[in-house]
């Protein structure tokens, strides 16, 4: 039982590393798309899963990241400058979006962030001089790394995979530092956290800003992956989808985004056989999952362990009772 996480982890790592060369272009694209969403939802998992905030505006940051790269590359600048701008812009705007969270929580905060997403989406759609409006921006290039061209789909996939690992390691480091505990304390009990000297306002803002920066990185990678962007993928429905990915994977679980994004990105592809019914099947699967696993897929091991403990405890009680009876 203890080995299960290790074995499944190694299996997923092996698939991510070894499978794509055997896939056609569309398969490689899907894997890249999956990793992009892993990075984006890692950020949302920090805001929502670890720090306990609500955000239905994550796709706006994903869009800001994508447009930063697209606009700068179109103007002849490098991808890396676009990436840096994406991170900084998302961090700063994310910090600003955190302010409503200092005043309102729960569903009210969700609506405030949803309003923010709508506003950003309108800017992307209406400010044609900057974003190309609904025509979008075409021919977005791909970067090169240490002189190595990443134009090929497979090369770009491995680049995105590498970025996912880097972003994952950074988050791992962040969560194992005292900041990680402060975020969890903020989520579990903000009033107690405050009475222990934890600057809950500061950590709330940071959870939004860092989460947004992750979405910025994902958006930057997304722009170069699809090479054509327009406002649609950054609308509110995308934010809801990302939130769903976090919830399905398991909010507050480190590997939750990996699984949740697989459900959000890959499952619809597998459900293509259902054709017109695919959304229905997907919706039904989500409903069942929420009913049985409200804490997400990664809560399954903990549930099984709890059941086993309960079984062992009741067996021990039965044995003790039998002894007393004799």
């Amino acid at each position, binding site marked *: 039982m203890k080995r299960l996480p290790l074995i499944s982890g190694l299996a997923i790592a092996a698939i991510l590393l070894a499978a794509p060369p055997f896939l056609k272009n569309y398969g490689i694209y899907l894997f890249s798309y999956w990793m992009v969403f892993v990075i984006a939802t890692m950020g949302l998992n920090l805001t929502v899963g670890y720090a306990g905030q609500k955000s239905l505006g994550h796709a706006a940051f994903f869009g800001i990241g994508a447009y930063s790269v697209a606009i700068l590359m179109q103007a002849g600048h490098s991808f890396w400058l676009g990436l840096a701008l994406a991170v900084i812009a998302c961090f700063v705007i994310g910090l600003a979006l955190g302010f409503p969270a200092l005043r309102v929580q729960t569903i009210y905060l969700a609506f405030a962030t949803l309003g923010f997403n709508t506003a950003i989406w309108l800017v992307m759609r209406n400010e044609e001089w900057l974003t190309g409006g609904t025509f979008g921006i075409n021919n977005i290039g791909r970067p090169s790394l240490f002189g190595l061209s990443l134009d090929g789909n497979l090369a770009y996939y491995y680049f995105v995979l590498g970025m996912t690992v880097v972003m994952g390691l950074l988050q791992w480091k*962040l969560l*194992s*530092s*005292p*900041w*990680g*505990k*402060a975020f*969890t*304390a903020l989520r*579990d*009990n903000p*009033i*107690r*956290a*405050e*009475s*222990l*000297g*934890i*600057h*809950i306002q*500061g950590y709330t803002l940071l959870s939004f800003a860092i989460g947004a920066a992750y979405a910025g990185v994902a958006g930057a990678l997304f722009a170069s992956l699809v090479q054509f962007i327009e406002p649609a993928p950054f609308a509110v429905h995308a934010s809801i989808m990302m939130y769903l990915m976090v919830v399905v994977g398991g909010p*507050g679980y480190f590997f939750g985004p990996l699984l949740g994004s697989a459900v959000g990105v890959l499952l619809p592809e597998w459900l293509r056989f259902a054709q017109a019914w695919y959304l229905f099947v997907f919706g039904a699967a989500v409903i069942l999952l929420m009913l049985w696993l409200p804490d997400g897929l990664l809560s399954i091991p903990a549930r099984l362990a709890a059941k086993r403990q309960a079984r062992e405890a009741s067996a021990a009680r039965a044995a003790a009772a039998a002894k007393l009876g004799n």
Partner: protein
Amino acid sequence: MIGPVLKVTDLRKAYGAIQAVGGVSFEVMPGEIFGVIGPNGSGKTTMFNSVLGQITPDAGKIELNGHDITHKSPQQLNQLGVGRTFQTLQVFGKMTVRDNLLVAAQEHQGSMWSRLFAPGDSGLGDRADALIDQFRIRHVAHKKAGELSYGQQKLVDIAMAFMSEPDLVLLDEPCAGVNPSLVGGISSLLKQLNQTRASGKKASSFVVIEHNMDFVMDLCHRILVMVEGQVLAVGTPDEIRGNKAVLDAYLGN
């Protein structure tokens, strides 16, 4: 001469027409365990929450070691050396017991920025382990706090208030819902902590709200009796026991 750790002067708080706290003054001396008793609705909790920055008093002054702290936030108060527990359990259920203790003091270590690069235990591991042993919760130290029994969680809850080695700790009904055998345990723990802090040698001062009269009389050096938002009496346990006004108003004899 050493001044009081906590000095409350003419504290007032009204809710609409109801004067919850109507001009309360008292002082808590260094190393003192100061009890606050009074019937339900006498204003104890309002007074407590005003001192702790949870609510804003209408008037009055609160000083910690001679500094005005009247309008400080709970977070600032903790940084200045005020620890507290709540009437109801307030542990972080999804964290381990040890992590609960670590997070309870980490914000006193270094700056916000330096904590991002600090080790996970913020260098507080030894202090946490000392409290874990003192509170006899070693066997559950690596369990999630939410999985413990009520009594065990209560111990974790109290231990957390002491992790940052505060000068002053306010305990809101530390015995509420606790079985009688553990009440004695909590009492002796608080006496120990009052004598020596977790790792330092300086005595700390406590303010304790509690309904369990035996506990208060046994633990506290002085007791303040509140009735209808006013101070009815302040004195040693023996003085309070013998005070006729207190007996009439509170104990109903």
